[in-house]
Protein backbone atom coordinates (compact mmCIF):
# COMPACT_ATOMS: atom_id res chain seq x y z
CA UNK A 1 0.00 0.00 0.00
CA UNK A 2 1.35 3.39 -0.92
CA UNK A 3 1.64 5.98 1.82
CA UNK A 4 1.68 9.70 1.09
CA UNK A 5 2.88 12.58 3.27
CA UNK A 6 2.46 16.20 2.44
CA UNK A 7 4.03 19.47 3.55
CA UNK A 8 3.54 23.02 2.29
CA UNK A 9 5.82 26.05 2.23
CA UNK A 10 5.15 29.70 1.56
CA UNK A 11 8.09 31.87 0.49
CA UNK A 12 8.15 35.65 0.19
CA UNK A 13 10.77 37.69 -1.62
CA UNK A 14 14.24 36.96 -2.96
CA UNK A 15 16.49 34.07 -1.98
CA UNK A 16 19.06 35.93 0.11
CA UNK A 17 16.75 38.38 1.88
CA UNK A 18 13.39 36.56 1.72
CA UNK A 19 11.92 34.11 4.16
CA UNK A 20 9.72 31.03 4.14
CA UNK A 21 7.38 29.15 6.42
CA UNK A 22 6.78 25.40 6.42
CA UNK A 23 3.16 24.84 7.35
CA UNK A 24 0.27 22.42 7.10
CA UNK A 25 2.15 19.15 7.26
CA UNK A 26 -0.18 16.12 7.05
CA UNK A 27 0.08 15.31 10.73
CA UNK A 28 -0.08 18.82 12.14
CA UNK A 29 2.67 17.65 14.50
CA UNK A 30 4.49 20.96 14.57
CA UNK A 31 3.40 24.54 14.16
CA UNK A 32 4.84 26.66 11.37
CA UNK A 33 8.63 26.31 10.98
CA UNK A 34 10.57 29.24 9.57
CA UNK A 35 13.28 28.80 6.94
CA UNK A 36 15.65 31.26 5.29
CA UNK A 37 18.94 31.26 3.41
CA UNK A 38 21.14 32.55 6.23
CA UNK A 39 20.00 29.77 8.56
CA UNK A 40 20.53 27.23 5.78
CA UNK A 41 23.95 28.23 4.51
CA UNK A 42 25.48 29.83 7.59
CA UNK A 43 25.04 29.06 11.29
CA UNK A 44 21.63 27.73 12.28
CA UNK A 45 20.05 30.22 14.64
CA UNK A 46 16.85 28.61 15.74
CA UNK A 47 15.44 28.07 12.26
CA UNK A 48 15.36 24.80 10.39
CA UNK A 49 16.58 24.07 6.85
CA UNK A 50 15.93 21.41 4.20
CA UNK A 51 19.15 19.66 5.22
CA UNK A 52 18.13 19.55 8.88
CA UNK A 53 14.79 18.02 7.88
CA UNK A 54 16.56 15.43 5.72
CA UNK A 55 18.81 14.62 8.70
CA UNK A 56 15.70 14.18 10.88
CA UNK A 57 14.02 11.94 8.28
CA UNK A 58 17.15 9.82 7.85
CA UNK A 59 17.83 9.38 11.59
CA UNK A 60 14.17 8.45 12.11
CA UNK A 61 14.04 6.00 9.22
CA UNK A 62 17.33 4.36 10.26
CA UNK A 63 16.13 3.90 13.86
CA UNK A 64 12.97 2.15 12.66
CA UNK A 65 14.79 -0.13 10.24
CA UNK A 66 17.34 -1.11 12.89
CA UNK A 67 14.70 -1.83 15.54
CA UNK A 68 12.97 -4.07 13.04
CA UNK A 69 16.14 -5.90 11.99
CA UNK A 70 17.17 -6.51 15.60
CA UNK A 71 13.70 -7.76 16.59
CA UNK A 72 13.65 -10.18 13.66
CA UNK A 73 16.88 -11.68 14.98
CA UNK A 74 15.27 -12.07 18.38
CA UNK A 75 16.97 -9.04 19.96
CA UNK A 76 14.41 -6.26 20.15
CA UNK A 77 16.28 -3.17 21.39
CA UNK A 78 15.49 -1.53 24.70
CA UNK A 79 16.68 1.79 23.37
CA UNK A 80 18.37 3.18 20.27
CA UNK A 81 19.79 6.68 20.00
CA UNK A 82 20.44 7.58 16.39
CA UNK A 83 21.61 10.75 14.68
CA UNK A 84 22.25 11.89 11.13
CA UNK A 85 24.53 14.72 10.01
CA UNK A 86 23.82 15.92 6.48
CA UNK A 87 26.46 17.91 4.59
CA UNK A 88 25.38 20.60 2.14
CA UNK A 89 27.88 22.33 -0.13
CA UNK A 90 26.19 25.40 -1.66
CA UNK A 91 26.71 25.28 -5.40
CA UNK A 92 27.47 21.55 -5.35
CA UNK A 93 24.57 19.99 -3.47
CA UNK A 94 23.98 17.55 -0.65
CA UNK A 95 27.03 15.34 -0.45
CA UNK A 96 26.90 13.18 2.68
CA UNK A 97 24.74 11.76 5.44
CA UNK A 98 26.60 10.37 8.43
CA UNK A 99 24.57 8.12 10.73
CA UNK A 100 25.44 7.24 14.31
CA UNK A 101 23.70 4.84 16.66
CA UNK A 102 24.18 3.94 20.30
CA UNK A 103 22.07 0.96 21.32
CA UNK A 104 20.96 -0.85 24.45
CA UNK A 105 20.24 -4.38 23.23
CA UNK A 106 20.12 -7.23 25.78
CA UNK A 107 22.07 -10.35 24.81
CA UNK A 108 23.68 -8.99 21.64
CA UNK A 109 27.42 -8.61 21.02
CA UNK A 110 29.13 -5.64 19.39
CA UNK A 111 29.81 -7.35 16.04
CA UNK A 112 26.22 -8.53 15.60
CA UNK A 113 24.97 -5.05 16.49
CA UNK A 114 27.29 -3.43 13.96
CA UNK A 115 26.16 -5.90 11.30
CA UNK A 116 22.48 -5.16 12.00
CA UNK A 117 23.20 -1.41 11.87
CA UNK A 118 24.99 -1.82 8.54
CA UNK A 119 21.95 -3.66 7.12
CA UNK A 120 19.61 -0.92 8.35
CA UNK A 121 21.85 1.75 6.82
CA UNK A 122 21.71 -0.07 3.47
CA UNK A 123 18.00 -0.86 3.43
CA UNK A 124 15.99 1.89 5.09
CA UNK A 125 13.83 3.69 2.50
CA UNK A 126 15.48 7.08 3.08
CA UNK A 127 18.94 5.54 2.49
CA UNK A 128 17.58 3.99 -0.72
CA UNK A 129 16.29 7.37 -1.87
CA UNK A 130 19.63 9.08 -1.18
CA UNK A 131 21.93 6.33 -2.43
CA UNK A 132 23.89 6.97 -5.58
CA UNK A 133 24.04 10.69 -4.92
CA UNK A 134 25.45 10.97 -1.43
CA UNK A 135 28.07 9.24 0.64
CA UNK A 136 26.52 7.28 3.54
CA UNK A 137 28.56 6.80 6.71
CA UNK A 138 27.85 4.77 9.83
CA UNK A 139 29.22 4.66 13.36
CA UNK A 140 27.53 2.07 15.60
CA UNK A 141 28.21 0.96 19.16
CA UNK A 142 26.46 -0.63 22.13
CA UNK A 143 26.14 1.20 25.42
Amino acid sequence: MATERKASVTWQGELMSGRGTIESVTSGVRGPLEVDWANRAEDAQGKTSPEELIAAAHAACFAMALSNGLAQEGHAPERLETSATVTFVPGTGITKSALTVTGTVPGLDEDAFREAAEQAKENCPVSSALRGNVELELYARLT
Partner: protein
Amino acid sequence: MPRVERHAEVTWKGNLARGEGRISAPSGAFSELPYSAATRVAARAETTSPEELLAAAHAGCFAMSLAGELQDPDARIAVTANVVLDEVEGKGHQIVESQLTVRAQAPGLGQGAFDEAVGAADDGCPFSRLIAAGAKVTIDARLEET
Protein backbone atom coordinates in the same frame (compact mmCIF):
# COMPACT_ATOMS: atom_id res chain seq x y z
CA MET B 1 30.93 28.89 -0.20
CA PRO B 2 31.73 26.76 2.84
CA ARG B 3 30.19 23.40 3.41
CA VAL B 4 27.32 23.26 5.85
CA GLU B 5 26.34 20.43 8.19
CA ARG B 6 22.94 19.91 9.76
CA HIS B 7 22.32 17.37 12.48
CA ALA B 8 19.26 15.69 13.96
CA GLU B 9 18.79 13.14 16.71
CA VAL B 10 16.33 10.33 17.38
CA THR B 11 15.64 8.17 20.40
CA TRP B 12 13.78 4.94 19.70
CA LYS B 13 12.38 2.56 22.31
CA GLY B 14 11.30 -1.02 21.65
CA ASN B 15 10.66 -3.02 18.50
CA LEU B 16 9.29 -1.68 15.23
CA ALA B 17 5.66 -2.69 15.55
CA ARG B 18 5.03 -1.43 19.08
CA GLY B 19 7.91 0.91 19.77
CA GLU B 20 8.04 4.66 19.27
CA GLY B 21 10.61 7.34 18.61
CA ARG B 22 11.25 11.05 19.20
CA ILE B 23 13.01 13.35 16.72
CA SER B 24 14.92 16.50 17.73
CA ALA B 25 17.01 19.16 16.02
CA PRO B 26 19.87 20.91 17.87
CA SER B 27 18.94 24.17 16.11
CA GLY B 28 15.96 24.25 18.43
CA ALA B 29 13.56 24.55 15.47
CA PHE B 30 11.80 21.38 16.64
CA SER B 31 12.24 18.86 19.43
CA GLU B 32 10.82 15.55 20.59
CA LEU B 33 8.57 15.05 17.57
CA PRO B 34 6.84 11.71 18.10
CA TYR B 35 6.64 9.02 15.39
CA SER B 36 6.01 5.28 15.13
CA ALA B 37 5.53 2.53 12.56
CA ALA B 38 1.75 2.79 12.79
CA THR B 39 1.80 6.52 12.08
CA ARG B 40 4.27 6.08 9.23
CA VAL B 41 1.87 3.82 7.32
CA ALA B 42 -1.43 5.39 8.39
CA ALA B 43 -1.25 9.10 9.16
CA ARG B 44 -2.42 10.08 12.59
CA ALA B 45 -2.72 13.59 13.91
CA GLU B 46 0.21 14.97 15.91
CA THR B 47 2.70 12.27 14.85
CA THR B 48 5.23 12.76 12.06
CA SER B 49 7.11 10.28 9.83
CA PRO B 50 10.34 10.28 7.80
CA GLU B 51 8.31 10.86 4.62
CA GLU B 52 6.57 13.90 6.11
CA LEU B 53 9.97 15.37 7.04
CA LEU B 54 11.24 14.72 3.51
CA ALA B 55 8.13 16.43 2.10
CA ALA B 56 8.90 19.47 4.29
CA ALA B 57 12.56 19.39 3.15
CA HIS B 58 11.62 19.20 -0.53
CA ALA B 59 9.00 21.95 -0.37
CA GLY B 60 11.43 24.17 1.56
CA CYS B 61 14.29 23.44 -0.83
CA PHE B 62 12.26 24.02 -4.00
CA ALA B 63 10.73 27.27 -2.71
CA MET B 64 14.23 28.65 -1.99
CA SER B 65 15.52 27.48 -5.34
CA LEU B 66 12.65 29.18 -7.22
CA ALA B 67 13.14 32.37 -5.17
CA GLY B 68 16.77 32.27 -6.27
CA GLU B 69 15.69 32.10 -9.93
CA LEU B 70 12.98 34.78 -9.79
CA GLN B 71 15.12 37.34 -7.91
CA ASP B 72 12.01 39.37 -7.12
CA PRO B 73 11.58 40.97 -3.68
CA ASP B 74 7.81 40.99 -4.22
CA ALA B 75 7.54 37.36 -5.26
CA ARG B 76 5.22 35.11 -3.31
CA ILE B 77 5.74 31.38 -3.73
CA ALA B 78 3.65 28.54 -2.30
CA VAL B 79 4.96 24.99 -2.66
CA THR B 80 3.39 21.72 -1.52
CA ALA B 81 5.34 18.45 -1.67
CA ASN B 82 3.63 15.08 -1.49
CA VAL B 83 6.10 12.23 -0.87
CA VAL B 84 5.01 8.70 -1.78
CA LEU B 85 6.35 5.57 -0.04
CA ASP B 86 5.39 2.32 -1.76
CA GLU B 87 6.31 -1.33 -1.79
CA VAL B 88 8.43 -2.18 -4.82
CA GLU B 89 8.72 -5.81 -5.84
CA GLY B 90 12.01 -7.27 -4.67
CA LYS B 91 13.10 -4.04 -2.99
CA GLY B 92 10.70 -3.61 -0.07
CA HIS B 93 9.48 -0.14 0.79
CA GLN B 94 10.92 2.63 -1.36
CA ILE B 95 10.32 6.35 -1.75
CA VAL B 96 9.02 6.32 -5.32
CA GLU B 97 7.79 9.83 -5.97
CA SER B 98 7.70 13.43 -4.76
CA GLN B 99 4.92 15.51 -6.31
CA LEU B 100 5.40 19.28 -6.16
CA THR B 101 2.56 21.77 -6.55
CA VAL B 102 3.82 25.32 -7.07
CA ARG B 103 1.74 28.51 -7.11
CA ALA B 104 3.56 31.79 -7.55
CA GLN B 105 2.81 35.48 -7.82
CA ALA B 106 5.47 37.75 -9.31
CA PRO B 107 4.43 41.17 -10.59
CA GLY B 108 5.28 41.66 -14.25
CA LEU B 109 6.64 38.14 -14.87
CA GLY B 110 5.62 36.46 -18.15
CA GLN B 111 4.56 32.82 -18.49
CA GLY B 112 7.61 31.88 -20.55
CA ALA B 113 10.06 33.34 -18.05
CA PHE B 114 8.16 31.62 -15.20
CA ASP B 115 8.29 28.20 -16.90
CA GLU B 116 12.01 28.66 -17.46
CA ALA B 117 12.54 29.62 -13.82
CA VAL B 118 10.63 26.54 -12.62
CA GLY B 119 12.82 24.26 -14.75
CA ALA B 120 15.98 25.94 -13.50
CA ALA B 121 14.71 25.75 -9.91
CA ASP B 122 14.26 21.98 -10.23
CA ASP B 123 17.75 21.62 -11.73
CA GLY B 124 19.18 23.75 -8.94
CA CYS B 125 17.29 22.30 -5.97
CA PRO B 126 19.71 20.00 -4.12
CA PHE B 127 16.83 17.86 -2.85
CA SER B 128 15.40 17.24 -6.32
CA ARG B 129 18.86 16.13 -7.47
CA LEU B 130 19.32 14.01 -4.39
CA ILE B 131 16.34 11.74 -4.91
CA ALA B 132 16.38 11.77 -8.72
CA ALA B 133 18.27 8.46 -8.83
CA GLY B 134 15.56 6.52 -7.03
CA ALA B 135 12.35 8.53 -7.24
CA LYS B 136 10.35 10.55 -9.72
CA VAL B 137 9.88 14.31 -9.17
CA THR B 138 6.75 15.78 -10.76
CA ILE B 139 5.95 19.52 -10.84
CA ASP B 140 2.58 21.16 -11.34
CA ALA B 141 3.44 24.87 -11.50
CA ARG B 142 1.14 27.81 -12.13
CA LEU B 143 1.76 31.55 -12.27
CA GLU B 144 -1.12 33.37 -10.63
CA GLU B 145 -2.42 36.91 -11.04
CA THR B 146 -1.06 39.32 -8.47
